[in-house]
């Protein structure tokens, strides 16, 4: 009898759910978080496009407004004044592109660990840039799950691509 829940992946069998329900519940939870996180980044990326970040000085205006809000002697104040505002164009491109690449990785389960690492890196940069708040702690924790666990092997293209390219670090 074929018990596969999802064809082609031995993880998704009724037997897996029956024999190790706790593990499978954890896997499903992490996968739900992966799609939620991907949606979160997708909305953020689309908002950057809609806000004209790539072809206007929208980010310079945002940084300038933020500089007026943060304490000048903080790391965020220094970053905004010396790096953020002078280099707003490349920063706008990097932020927008990463926010659009990460959801592709997470939705399709391709280079998932790389996508998770990119998300962690971007959010660390946000904190340095004067945009730290407690939500970043939770988001770092969620994104770290996609770096630690092989979620693209559980559901996504990484499993197949890793079989085809076992030495490639992209699909581990």
């Amino acid at each position, binding site marked *: 009898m074929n018990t596969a829940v*999802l064809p082609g992946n031995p993880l998704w069998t009724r037997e897996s759910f029956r024999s190790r329900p706790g593990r499978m519940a954890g896997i499903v939870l992490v996968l739900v978080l992966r799609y939620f996180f991907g949606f979160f980044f997708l909305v953020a990326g689309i908002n950057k496009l809609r806000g004209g970040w790539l072809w206007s000085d929208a980010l310079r205006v945002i940084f300038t407004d933020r500089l007026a809000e943060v304490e000048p002697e903080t790391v965020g104040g220094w970053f905004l004044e010396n790096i953020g505002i002078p280099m707003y164009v490349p920063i706008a491109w990097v932020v927008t592109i990463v926010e659009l690449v990460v959801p592709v990785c997470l939705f399709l389960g391709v280079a998932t660990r790389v996508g998770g690492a990119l998300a962690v890196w971007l959010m660390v940069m946000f904190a340095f840039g004067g945009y730290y*708040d*407690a939500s970043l702690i939770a988001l770092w924790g969620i994104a770290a799950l996609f770096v630690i666990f092989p979620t693209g092997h559980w559901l996504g293209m990484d499993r197949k691509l890793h079989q085809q390219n076992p030495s490639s670090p992209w699909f581990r």
Partner: protein
Amino acid sequence: MSLEAIHRPAARRGLVGRVAGAVAACLVLAGCTQEFSNEGLLIPVNPLCTVCDDFIRCEAEPAGSGTTLYHLDHKSFLAQVLTIFEYPLRPFRQRTEDERPLKIYPPGAKAAEQPPGAVALTDLVAHRIAVPGGWIDQATGAWHNEDGSLKGACTLLPVAEGRQFVRDLRTPPAQ
């Protein structure tokens, strides 16, 4: 060829199709999201900012009868974390209110008063900020009592000026 092998491409196409459909739906929904607008407001307060300080100085009428400073403080740790869920829900559910912890510096005070549960509740539709005992019209800066009668006028201080205002209150005058 096994039955499973025949069905596998169709299943995969179905999965890819569902993911593509979900992404397309997200794109459409995100494209429809309404942005908050503070345009034209005399007292703009960003409802998306969780770690902002906003200082509103209100002068009671008649002039010279006292200045009250309202400090709209950072949101609580939990409120900051919960914005994670609020952000992707924006395409589906538009917020109409925003709540911030509030510190009040009444006339002559040397320290902030923070009555239990004191909050500044911003009505994002009517552009009003409810504070204990009244409300502030964000469009005109008018300061009203709870019954709607005029109490005075308010202005939004630049953040640096607001922080300095608070420091000056706390600093004892030089002898």
